């Protein structure tokens, strides 16, 4: 019987196939076009050599002029990219380390106020940093008077703000991961005479190393995409991050340079998109935990 059915299925009419699956491909194509066209548009604009945006057709022109100009050492773009990479790297490494320490305490040690501490971490995290803008600005401008190295207009000042803000969510996520490491492992090490620092650095952190890396990369993506905090902290163009700097290419009505902006946007987005696609699996599981943007 079944041998008879299989060839029959293969020969099913186009109409039936279309009714069951084919129309889904059409919807899929529409969605693909919808998802892609803004991205194709910006790639296409980055390849034109006019300053404006009036390119009627996609890929009507192909020149790498804008890219060459951007990576010219005289252009500030490379500087912005450098600033962004520096700030995002330090922030991601710092926040992962701080969160890991705190998560270790919550996961492995028992102390008074543990539950309350975890809950308040989550609650404090709900105050979005955008709402604290005025206060953050006030704190940094006060710091400028006493410790200029971490005041307004400094990369370290911004890094400190990011570190403070990233801690709550990071700790909570990491707490979940640490709980998946069997407690017997560190108990065995303890009996063998390992100190708590040895257990933390050489056992637990090693075991969750892949997750630490993923979290650092996610934090990198988030930090390098931040616009609002960076825009209030920096006021000189040589200090800008990409998020703030690229906007200045098109904000000035007299010297809008969409082609240049597009090239910069493509260069800035490419690594982030690549990271994102590479980390897809982790991001999706993190999303279900409500972790990243959204």
């Amino acid at each position, binding site marked *: 019987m079944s041998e008879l059915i299989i060839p029959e299925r293969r020969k099913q009419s186009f109409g039936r196939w279309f009714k069951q699956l084919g129309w889904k491909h059409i919807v899929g194509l529409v969605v693909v076009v919808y998802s892609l066209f803004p991205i194709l548009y910006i790639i296409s604009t980055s390849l034109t050599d006019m300053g404006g945006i009036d390119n009627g057709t996609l890929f009507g022109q192909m020149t790498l002029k804008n890219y060459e100009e951007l990576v010219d050492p005289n252009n500030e773009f490379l500087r912005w990219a450098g600033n962004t990479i520096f700030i995002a790297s330090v922030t991601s490494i710092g926040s992962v380390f701080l969160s890991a320490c705190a998560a270790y305490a919550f996961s492995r040690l028992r102390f008074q106020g543990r539950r309350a501490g975890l809950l308040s971490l989550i609650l404090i995290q709900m105050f979005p940093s955008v709402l604290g803008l005025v206060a953050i600005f006030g704190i940094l401008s006060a710091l400028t008077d006493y410790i200029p190295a971490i005041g307004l207009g400094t990369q370290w000042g911004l890094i400190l703000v990011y570190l*403070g803000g990233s801690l709550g969510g990071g700790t909570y996520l990491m707490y979940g991961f640490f709980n998946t490491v069997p407690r017997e492992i560190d108990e065995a090490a303890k009996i063998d005479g390992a100190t708590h620092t040895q257990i933390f650095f050489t056992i637990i952190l090693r075991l969750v190393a892949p997750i630490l890396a993923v979290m650092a990369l996610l934090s990198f993506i988030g930090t390098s995409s931040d616009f609002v905090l960076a825009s209030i902290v920096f006021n000189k163009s040589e200090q800008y991050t990409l998020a703030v700097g690229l906007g200045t290419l098109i904000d000035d009505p007299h010297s809008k340079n969409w082609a240049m902006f597009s090239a910069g946007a493509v260069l800035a987005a490419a690594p982030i998109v690549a990271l994102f696609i590479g980390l897809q699996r982790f991001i999706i599981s993190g999303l279900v935990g409500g972790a990243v943007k959204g």
Partner: protein
Amino acid sequence: MTTVDPMSDKKALKARAKAQKKLQEGGSPSLKGTLIKIAMLGLLDAGAMFLAMMLIMKEEWGFTALLVAVTLVINYIYLKPGGLPAKYLAPGVLFLLAFQVYVVFFSGFIAFTNYGSLHNGSQESALDAITQSAVVPVEGSSTYDLKVVKNEDGALEFLVTDFDTTKVYVGGTDFKADPFREVTADPGLKIGEDGMAESLAGYTRLTEEEISAKGEEISAMKVPVGADINTDGFLLTPDGMTAEMNKFDAVYDKASDSITRLSDGVVFKANQATGFFESEATGERFDIGWQVMVGFNNFARIFGDEELRGPLLGILLWTFMFAIGSVLSTFIVGLALALLFNDERLRGKKIYRAIMILPYAFPAFLSAYVWKGMFQTEHGFINQTILGLSPESGIPWLEDVGLARVAVLMVNLWLGFPYMFLITTGALQAIPGELTESATIDGATPWQQFRLIKLPLLLVSLAPLLISSFAYNFNNFTIIYLLTGGGPGGDPTLRLDAGGTDILITFVYKLAFGGGVGADYGLASAFSILIFLIVGSISYVTFRRTRALEDLV
């Protein structure tokens, strides 16, 4: 020997207890670990000492005490044996306290002050700024030809020639160091053809480029002509070429806490309720104030100010529309796609999925700019290429309030549908297949299966994420600010700059950092607190209802 010596038994017990305790405390520290710890603490203490010295020099006793206290606590935590939780929590908690908890409380504090560009600091600094800027020319005094010169220390001084008497003087801003003195008879003085001093030995004259480069510094210079700047007056230059005698017009009297304007005798009394020097007689005030507590004034303004009420209601309504609209539109599209693609037989699912994730992977701030470019009326990609409109008949996407709102929602749909697709796919796959199977056997149509079985189950598992998405979009600053800047409409020169697509958070940002009439940090912070309360309570109630908070710990 089976008998046990009671003494040695006790010893053994004690030793065992000690070992047990050590285990609890995390073993005995290694020499290397101890050395690293001490070295790091030493570095930290050295840094703290250095900072403390700086703070002491600035006479900031409060901050010094705080710094010393924090340093001592850190040292105590790390030097004391045991107390492991504190050792691991301290670094994170320190950052959390400084840049998150403190930010929350500081926002709350600012909300009760009039902090803003008009009330920027203490009364002393306001007083200083007022008296320094309130100057009047001394009537009947002579005017001077001016050459700006640099003395041997590099400080700027005025070399002036009295137009009437042709007497020549030189002097700097600090009367003690560079006193104003007559140098008419100085052998090093060179007089030009016009009878005015040209140069003086020991001083270098500034070139014209230097003068224009240091224009601000030079026009702020006050060169006292006597030891007491208040009674003797000082020279000011309006143009860098001539100088004239001026005197302070505003004189502060400490006893009555008031400023008297000498030119017309009006008295401005310090008003600690408003943070301004105000005159009862004329109703005038100096526009440089200081920070005072204003109680619930900022909140009262939010709810009572007629001028605020109109735009605020519109903004609040639109903020909810935007947040709810964004969640609904992305959820519906994401859900539809998830149902569609959740099909074993469909080929190429992975490719579709990889492309669909792109809008979500593309940094949002860049997407906002890209869409802004595509929505341009005259040569934008959407009007010109997709809709085939000529530049003259283009749809004014971002220039009309209704269209701009549609545009913002469209962009947010593009940004957000992949996220909803991903999470609903995940949740759909978690629904047990038996449920739909048995429903099919019972004769339920696909629509009934979806409406009565899948959707309720999906909503249960996705509710917390939908709420977070609502909270996120309620404060989705980036997309609004970068796409429309809150416009169309809205005028940064007005006191309240509210545009057609402004949501609460962009409105607050403009209040504080808009650079229009004047920043009002107090009012902005009051708004921030209210927004937090709105979003926080909505989230709390819904999280409670979905019991998400209960299984957190």
